[in-house]
């Protein structure tokens, strides 16, 4: 073990922890912080299931070391709903449009789309398909995920008006 102390912010709350220098951010979130909503589908950076936001940008948490997150703001699926439990428009839309089946790719899909819709709240269908092209879903055929993203985008635009 070559452990270091790290301090970061996870879903708005300060976290102080210890991580072996080789521990991935994904394993630190899942096993040290018990935030098991972030999933590991390939552990080599292709499937996108482990996507979280680090300082607002989507990151494959299987390819980032926990110690690299020192001082960063990390956002995971557990931090997506409001403090009162109100679901993010994407979460609501995924349920309405059947954008998930087994739920394993869902956290990565949601976090990828959170970032995307913050940058582009009025996307075309093809742009959404491109945005999630780094996230593999074996269940849905993606169509319902795209439909959910369109619904959420409309809701986000409505809230901004």
């Amino acid at each position, binding site marked *: *073990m070559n452990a270091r102390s790290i301090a970061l912010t996870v879903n708005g709350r300060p976290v102080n922890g210890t991580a*072996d220098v080789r521990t991935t951010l994904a394993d630190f979130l899942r096993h040290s912080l018990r935030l098991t909503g972030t999933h590991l*589908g390939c552990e080599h950076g292709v499937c996108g299931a482990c996507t979280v936001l680090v300082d607002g940008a989507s990151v494959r948490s299987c390819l980032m070391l926990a110690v690299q997150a020192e001082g960063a703001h990390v956002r995971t699926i*557990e931090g*997506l709903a409001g403090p009162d439990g109100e679901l993010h428009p994407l979460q609501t839309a995924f349920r309405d449009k059947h954008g998930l089946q*087994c*739920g394993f790719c869902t956290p990565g899909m949601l976090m990828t789309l959170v970032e995307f819709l913050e940058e582009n709240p009025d996307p075309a269908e093809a742009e959404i398909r491109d945005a999630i092209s780094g996230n593999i879903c074996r269940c849905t055929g*993606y169509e*319902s995920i795209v439909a959910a993203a369109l619904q959420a985008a409309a809701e986000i635009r409505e809230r901004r008006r």
Partner: protein
Amino acid sequence: MRAVGRSVPRIEDPALLVGKGRYVDDIALPGTLHAAFVRSASAHARIAAIDTAAAAGMPGVHAVLTAADLRPVLRSLRLPLGASPTSSENSSTPFVLNGHEAAYVGEPIALVVADTRYEAEDAAGAVFVDYEPLPVVADARRAVEAGTPAVRTELASNLLNRMMVAFGDVDEAFAKATHVVADELWQHRGCGHPLEGRGVLAETRPDGGLCVWSSTQMPHDLFHTLAGMLGLDENCLRVVTPDVGGGFGPKYCIYPEELAVPAAALLLGRNVKWIEDRRENFLSAVQERDQYWSLEVATDGDGRILGMRGRLIHDQGAYAPKAVNLPYNSASAVTGPYVVPAFAVEVLIAHTNKVPVSSVRGAGYPQAAFAMERMIDLVAARLGIDRVAVRARNLIPPEKMPYTKPLKARSGAGIVYDSGDYPACQAEALAAAGWHDFPRRQAEALAQGRHLGIGIANAVKGTGRGPFESGVVRVAPSGRVSVFTGATAMGQGLATALAQICADELGVRPEEVGVIAGDTAFAQFGLGGFASRQLVTAGSSVHIAAKAVAAKAIRAASTMLDLPEAELELAGGEVRGRGGSNRGISLAEIATRLRGAPGYAFPAEIEPGLEASIQWKTDALAYANACHVAEVEVDIETGHVGVSHYIALHDSGRLINPMIVDGQIKGGIAHGIGNALYELMGYDEEGQPLTTTFADYLLVTAPELPRFETLYRETPSPINPLGAKGVGEAGTIPAAAAIISAVEDALRPFGVRISQTPVTPEFLFNLISKARAKQRAEREMPA
């Protein structure tokens, strides 16, 4: 409002959407150790020695276990045949750990148990295995040739099984045929690849037993296998299926790791967890891979099929964890929705030095559909008849339903197509696809140098395989309504569908019903998740059980309220008088009364407990059918195929939740498109896997897919009380055939024939280049 038939939101979703799912790796038990497997690096080798000393001394390591170490707690080192009535081993069932002769790259040889997964993996890399190379057989066709070395030295032959699937007089059919067409097909279906790999957590219990969580489609089969192999008292063993991140077939097998991890837990007296990584999934989860077909079709002058014959060589890989139903499915399902009077296909099941083969979504049916549909296209091309006309002439007409195929299912029961109107389905799908207008669009595009093509494929799928699935419905004294079943949820929405079925009978809402699926502590009997079976079988049991609970609630309420049963109804979670009577009694009150209280009177002639347990039995299958039409554009300079339109018509009987059905169908189509164009599990001649990451093995992603247009007909199945037919695999089955038909159509100017899946850009580029060169040569040839 009744829930059945409506797209009610899934009861699974609220937890999954906020990161509160509980998959096997999310379960944290105190003091858990972590396992990593040492896997064979060689496709075939005698294992001369295993040196564990260095690994055993590494930080955090508790044990390095070989086959010899596990032997004392195992009845045998060899797994029994999975999902079989006898549970006995044979010379092709896998080993828990193999310490003597590795037969494929990835075969488990030893197991390291350490404080963390990181440390376990470090130590696994430090175990030294001395391999003495043995001859490798990587091609199933070569495996069955005379003189080919054995895939395992214990085998007398690489031919695991040879069978004839036949009916009618084939020789006579070919003797009187006007036309005979023949082709050789290679079909590759790759791997299952649920996004969550496999995983096992074994908890040691104070009574000396175990609680085992596994990401499986088969908890009850695992339960019985563990009890037998570990010699555990069944009363001290529990198998739980947590949330499962997709099944798609590979989790239908019982695996060496599912035995080795619990065995290690017993040996060490510690909780042990193993979570598969993706590379391991490529190396050791079952695949469906390769089938090589030779087929001939005999027709009359109008393209009516008189007979089919041929041979199928099926790549079984190094072991057969289950009975070899997959190639039997392929051969017996070839004739699909068509009338074929005579048929004879010889099936050769060949061992190779590759990962064992078992079902992936579709389980042999996609290959059957591909073989049939490709041959029909060939008949159409040779006879100069339109592809859809040849199909229409050969489809089973609706007036012949129920239609008996002269074959037996694995259960020994006849294959009887219960219902459906196949010609009407094809006509409706063609109309929706604009089939008859397509030649105009195709010609216009070609004039601009664009190569469009359209393809069609029909399919049937036997669903709802028995012999039964369990369904228990219970109302607790709190009023909580629960369903317990041996059916296993892998993400399809099973809990929602069963809750809908239960809710309607008890007058409650689906979200008020809890469903526990695949936990042996709650369901004594169960078969599990496979063969598009669970909605039909578990759904029927739950339907009947919920009706029985409703009847019991009314009977009890009649006594408690002193009103005749006929004047009572169940609604809103209570039994009340019909016609607005204000006298009512809640299900909670009834369940509390039926719980009994010491010394107090119990309602006469009513059994204790507000519950019912049903195992609805069936030998018959409910046959779903489909017609898919695909439109593609092929870039002839690069070989790239773009799927531009996709129409899928399905008749899956009565739809319990149309939203869930549509999700199953569309996901299934995406899988089939992947099989047609992308998914290839590559091996070299030495049996070394070439594709062990998602960067090498391509799963379809969102930009490659069009919007799917799905259409549904609902012909209720007469063979189950719900009228339902399964939908888990139906979307996949015709998809590759439809896509390849369309690609071939797009390349009509080059006169090419495509007889394989997948077709990669490289393959198409070479095919087109060769055809163009030939055309050039013909043009330049002096007249």
